[in-house]
């Protein structure tokens, strides 16, 4: 078996720089805020190094941008990397906090050799503007060691790998402190010299645990790695060094996240109809926006337009420190239909969904309604309004069975203030509603008012006269 290990030396830094145009020197400090953990190239040019005290760093660069490392966020980021790597390799294992294993011996045939795999991964890293040290070895631990020291090579030759491992100094092996000290006292300085020791002696004189570590590196002891499964949700986060005050400023990172979402959806062959956008503020509750499309959708452009509309409607309450875009609902993609081979006829189905989504995003979902008749004798109950759906198969109501009714119904009966000039038909008695407490007992007439309009008027039990509709 061959294992590829990706070591991300400054993942958080890459992530932040990816989501914001370069703004100057940037460092990541540890949780307590005392030491520099990661420094960007601009900062390194100014003389800042990892492990330096923050005060010293600030002395070197007074307008330094500082971000605090957050273990939870690092875990998220690592998952993100696993997600794209999963496009290329099936068996992936996470190595928190900053590495990923991928089993590659089974992929050689697919990609046509180890160099091709190496190249593919390197290219993917460049596309994502990520820094990673890559190494290949025959055991997971060996791959990790080589990657950490940056000595990874594209080779499947076991002897070559063992030589490279053997040349590693003991300090780089990551053994526990006590064991390394004892080994050094024994006069051993490289890993190769430790490999040469007899196993039984190593376990007896040092510790069985150390022997296990060494054997795992050598490959004489089993080191199973459970495969990672991609989550069934999409979640991406962008952090801003400088708070964003206008919604326009969010678009840069949204574009990138949406492009990744589109890629992810294409790769899964899925669509979605709901995006959740969470904007975090420094001192306030986060703003949660729900962006809905009317139909299944996967294109980044469409999502971006809808989000823009939503943000236009709802200005930012406070400056944004970070944003999270999450998708939890996925639907399987339907076979594209309606479009001809040459793409000359417009896909009306798609255009319909686009238009309705746009309107709903700006006006609110309640603003759009569809009407349907309902089985009830009372005029105000004989219709219903529902949310907009894509029209299905046309059905026809037997029109002869429906009574004659006006095309306009008033929102509520309005008192009749003018004496009608002509009476046309009536009375039609409508009495009902005793079953649900909204009793209606009316005599309906069609009458022409002095203005020339035809009205549907009724007289109720108390002898009051009302207009209920217009024959428009």
């Amino acid at each position, binding site marked *: 078996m061959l294992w590829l290990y990706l070591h991300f030396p400054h993942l958080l830094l890459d992530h932040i720089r990816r989501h914001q145009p370069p703004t100057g020197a940037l460092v990541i400090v540890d949780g307590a805020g005392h030491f520099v953990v990661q420094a960007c190239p601009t900062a390194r040019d100014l003389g800042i190094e990892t492990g330096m005290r923050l005060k010293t760093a600030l002395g070197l660069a007074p307008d330094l941008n500082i971000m605090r490392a957050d273990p939870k966020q690092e875990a998220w980021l690592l998952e993100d990397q696993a997600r794209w790597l999963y496009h290329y390799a099936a068996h992936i294992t996470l190595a928190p906090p900053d590495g990923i294993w991928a089993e590659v011996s089974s992929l050689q045939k697919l990609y046509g050799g180890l160099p091709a795999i190496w190249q593919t991964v390197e290219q993917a890293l460049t596309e994502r503007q990520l820094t990673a040290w890559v190494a290949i070895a025959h055991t997971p631990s060996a791959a990790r060691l080589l990657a950490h020291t940056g000595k990874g090579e594209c080779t499947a030759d076991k002897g070559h790998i063992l030589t490279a491992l053997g040349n590693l100094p003991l300090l780089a092996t990551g053994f526990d402190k006590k064991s390394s000290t004892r080994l050094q006292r024994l006069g051993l300085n490289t890993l190769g010299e430790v490999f040469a020791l007899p196993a039984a002696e190593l376990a007896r004189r040092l510790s069985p645990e150390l022997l296990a570590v060494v054997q795992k590196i050598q490959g004489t002891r089993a080191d199973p790695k459970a495969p990672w499964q991609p989550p069934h949700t999409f979640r991406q986060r962008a952090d801003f060094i400088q708070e964003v005050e206008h919604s326009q400023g969010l678009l840069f990172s949204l574009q990138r996240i949406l492009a990744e979402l589109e890629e992810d959806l294409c790769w899964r062959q899925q669509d979605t109809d709901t995006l959740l956008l969470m904007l975090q503020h420094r001192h306030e509750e986060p703003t949660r926006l729900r962006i809905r499309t009317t139909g299944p959708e996967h294109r980044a452009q469409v999502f971006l337009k809808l989000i823009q509309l939503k943000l236009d409607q709802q200005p930012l309450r406070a400056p944004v420190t970070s944003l999270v875009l999450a998708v939890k609902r996925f639907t399987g993609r339907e076979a594209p239909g309606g479009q001809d081979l040459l793409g000359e006829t417009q896909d009306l189905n798609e255009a319909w969904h686009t238009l309705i989504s746009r309107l709903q995003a700006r006006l609110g979902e309640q603003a759009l309604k569809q009407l349907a008749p309902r089985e009830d004798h009372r005029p105000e109950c004989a219709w219903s309004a529902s949310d907009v759906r894509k029209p299905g198969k046309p059905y026809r109501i037997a029109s002869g069975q429906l009574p004659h*009714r006006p095309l*306009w119904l008033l929102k509520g009966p309005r008192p009749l203030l003018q004496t009608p000039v002509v009476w046309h038909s009536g009375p039609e008695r409508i009495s009902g509603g005793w079953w649900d407490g909204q009793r209606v007992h009316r005599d309906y007439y069609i009458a022409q008012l002095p203005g020339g*309009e035809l009205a549907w008027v009724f007289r109720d039990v108390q002898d009051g006269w009302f207009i209920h509709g217009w024959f428009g």
Partner: protein
Amino acid sequence: MSELLSSLLQDARVWQGHKHRKTNQSAEPTGYQVLDNQLGGLGWPRGALSECLLDTCGIGELHLVLPLIQRVSQEGKTIFWLNPPHTPYAPALAREGVSLDHLVMINTRDQNDFLWTLENCLRSPVTGLVLAWPGRLAGRDIRRLQLASEAGGNVCVLFRSRREVDQNSPAALRLELIPGEHQDLKVNIIKRRGSWPGQRCSLALGQRADITNKESSQVVQGPWSGAGR
């Protein structure tokens, strides 16, 4: 003098009535032969605004566009109703053979939303017909809508108040609707493309309330003692 006249005639800014060109714009028949004849055999223009100017609802204005609604909804195109003054009554529409699945009602909060929505509806290829009740409209807004309408090639009917008869409007067709004595609808053509305005006709729309003349005498005259209160 004739020299002066001929130089004037050469000027493109002088409009010459006898040279009116036949419009080649596409149109939808109104479904009323009398009105179609008055409109030069065309009907509702596509890709342009039409305006109906009326005082009150209930004079047959929906029946004027009903043949078009029926046809468009059966073609499977969407019909948008923007800010209708009352509720379009679903049972009555269903009775007239309108496919309700293709009707979308939109209510907007303010004038900006209204114009934005109308423009979007007009530009979309899924739209077949837009019926809109805009309230007051500024001249430049109508101009903007007219451009959107040209881009989309849909029929758009704006229902506006008769007070705006004298207002200048870029709409391609303007009809003034006045209720007649016998439940009919008098249509005055205020403006149309490609010909002189001023034609008028009357459409019998009594059937909208199922009225035939002989029936009216059989109506039970309501106990109209409390009238006028």
